[in-house]
């Protein structure tokens, strides 16, 4: 790993803390800056530095080391420790990279969607949200997870509400999200309280050890597990608890939607993996049964019902939001298989879906930016009026459906293989059926864009009006990443295998890179 030698030693030892502290403190500085341009530039630089840091951490992890950082010099289990390992490092890199790409896109889009006075605080809230998400993933202390969960959630409510200057419904969406998100966080912290009562510690590794010694613990631990699953389920939009998601995604500023869709639910899913596999153990009877029944049941129900709902939406952003709920179902199915291959496939889909959905929402935002459209029926002839944007959208859409040579295909094939290995042929069937449903709902949009002529306004056909370069760069970066993963998925599969190895002490859950 030659790249690692570029990182100074200090940065590498303190990288885990710096990754959270930098956006948090800079977010606070941004809150009192008067200039929107300065705020954007600083936010962009912070995101860039975080990406480089996260890349350094990933390289270090795949060099075979894992990293434990003691906050304030108090060693675990007594102090708060930050842990970077094979499960958390790729998610850290994902969040920081998505922040960079979304910020590129933010430059034109925030100017169009947010009031001038609120733009600098908007970027401040964004950085705090990012710090919260990174903190949730990097921390090794269960209560610290709750703190960062709240940091990211509260700033997210603000970000969603900022959409009000474009669409007043953002306020009710934000309020709904606030109520449900707070209920989720409450459930989560109640669960943590019970878990603390059972184990007497808050350090995740220590909790895991004590629960293993207690052989799963008493009924208190069972209650704790139930509360934590419900709390996280609300945060990650598990099927019956997803009602906050569609309107939050549909009415918030498009930059926020792109960032949230690719990171917020993913960080919560990461926590679900962390709690169900490392703190609790699948070998514990009640955990195994809960995964089998709850996660798989709700995951599959979500895949089917949310896909069906996506078909009947008239607003493109709602279609994609319901599709997000369905995709979360795929990841839950992978996790619920409770095998190394299943968890690896779920994790792989987590990473891939972030790339795909981020790209799709950026494209939709660009279409709104140029023509002010979000209704599917208004997408007529977009392939002629915005060819480059529609091109990126099409690639990402194909990837979402799971066409060969795209990222979506790789994760769906791996998921189907993992299910088939367990003899769950019905799950393979569900994956195929929901992919067909995905063809229908994405096809609805593509059909309008490709097979209809551009509308006539004031007697003239709408002229070609391509999105600005700052929007084209991130959307094409994500679309090309999606193809690159589809052609050679070794890196992603390696990351997913590394994560699965940590959760299950076996090697190579997924057989190499599945290339069509």
């Amino acid at each position, binding site marked *: 790993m030659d790249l690692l030698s570029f990182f100074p030693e200090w940065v590498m030892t*303190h990288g885990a*803390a710096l990754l959270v*502290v930098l956006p*948090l403190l800079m977010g*606070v500085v941004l*809150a009192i800056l008067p200039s929107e341009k300065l705020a954007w530039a600083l936010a962009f630089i912070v995101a860039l530095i975080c990406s480089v840091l996260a890349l350094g951490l990933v390289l270090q992890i795949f060099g075979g080391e894992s990293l434990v950082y003691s*906050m*304030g010099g108090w060693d675990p289990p007594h102090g708060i420790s930050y842990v970077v390992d094979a499960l958390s490092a790729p998610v850290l890199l994902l969040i920081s990279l998505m922040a960079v790409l979304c910020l590129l896109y933010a430059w034109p889009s925030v100017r169009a969607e947010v009031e001038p006075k609120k733009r600098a605080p908007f970027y401040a809230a964004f950085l705090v949200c990012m710090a919260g998400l990174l903190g949730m993933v990097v921390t090794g202390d269960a209560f610290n997870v709750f703190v960062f969960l709240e940091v990211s959630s509260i700033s997210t409510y603000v970000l969603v509400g900022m959409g009000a200057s474009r669409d007043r419904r953002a306020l009710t969406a934000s309020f709904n999200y606030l109520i449900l998100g707070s209920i989720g966080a409450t459930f989560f912290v109640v669960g943590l309280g019970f878990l603390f009562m059972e184990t007497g510690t808050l350090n995740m590794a220590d909790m895991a050890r004590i629960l293993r010694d207690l052989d799963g613990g008493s009924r208190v631990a069972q209650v704790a597990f139930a509360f934590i699953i419900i709390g996280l389920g609300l945060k990650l939009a598990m099927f019956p608890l997803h009602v906050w998601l569609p309107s939050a995604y549909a009415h918030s500023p498009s930059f926020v939607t792109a960032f949230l869709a690719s990171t917020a639910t993913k960080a919560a899913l990461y926590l679900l993996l962390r709690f169900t596999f490392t703190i609790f153990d699948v070998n514990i009877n009640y955990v195994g049964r809960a995964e089998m029944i709850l996660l798989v049941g709700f995951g599959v129900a979500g895949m089917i019902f949310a896909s069906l709902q996506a078909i009947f939406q008239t607003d493109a952003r709602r279609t994609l939001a319901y599709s997000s709920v369905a995709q979360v179902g795929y990841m839950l199915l992978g996790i619920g298989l409770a095998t190394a291959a299943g968890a690896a496939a779920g994790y792989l889909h987590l990473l891939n879906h972030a790339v795909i959905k981020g790209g799709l929402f950026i494209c939709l935002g660009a279409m709104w930016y140029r023509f002010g459209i979000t209704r599917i029926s208004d997408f007529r002839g977009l392939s002629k009026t915005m060819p480059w944007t529609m091109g990126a959208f099409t690639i990402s859409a194909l990837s979402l459906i799971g066409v060969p040579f795209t990222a979506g295909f790789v994760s769906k094939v791996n998921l189907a293989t993992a299910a088939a290995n367990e003899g769950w042929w019905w799950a393979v069937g569900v994956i195929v059926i929901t992919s067909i449903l995905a063809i229908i709902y994405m096809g609805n949009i593509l059909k309008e864009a490709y097979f209809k002529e551009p509308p006539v306004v004031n007697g003239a056909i709408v002229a070609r009006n391509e999105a600005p370069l700052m929007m084209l760069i991130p959307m094409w970066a994500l679309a090309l990443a999606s193809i690159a993963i589809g052609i050679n998925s070794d890196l992603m599969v390696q990351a997913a295998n590394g994560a699965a190895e940590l959760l299950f002490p076996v090697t190579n859950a997924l057989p190499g890179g599945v290339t069509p």
Partner: protein
Amino acid sequence: MNPHVILRVVSKFLIPLIALFAFYVQFHGDFGPGGGFQAGVILAAAVILYALIFGIDAAKKAVPPSAVRIGMSLGVLIYGGTGVATWLLGANFLEYGVLAHDPSHGQHYGILAVELGVLFSVASVMVAIFYAFGSRQPDLTDEDW
């Protein structure tokens, strides 16, 4: 004749005492119960009482909203800045031991600095929340009391 004369006189006595008590709680925090959060709320209560009795405009003159906004950020920066200082001194983030020659003194200074940050942030946020709600148009005029 002002209808709230008793309230005005009593609160004029009380407000400085409340503020003083806030600082007592603040600096007592590292020996016993207390600390930045409680102190911040008490300090904000002094401002809020002033606003309730003398009107929100008078309170905004005494504690301007722009200062409140800076105070919110300043508190976090003091807290985080303590951590950055320990980084610059070559220790882990927020490892107070290095702030003085004797580690136990260092812990002491560190806690005081951090609690000061908490005081700033909590007091400012409390006042900011009150201003945000209080600045809306009143439904009840003073004559309807």
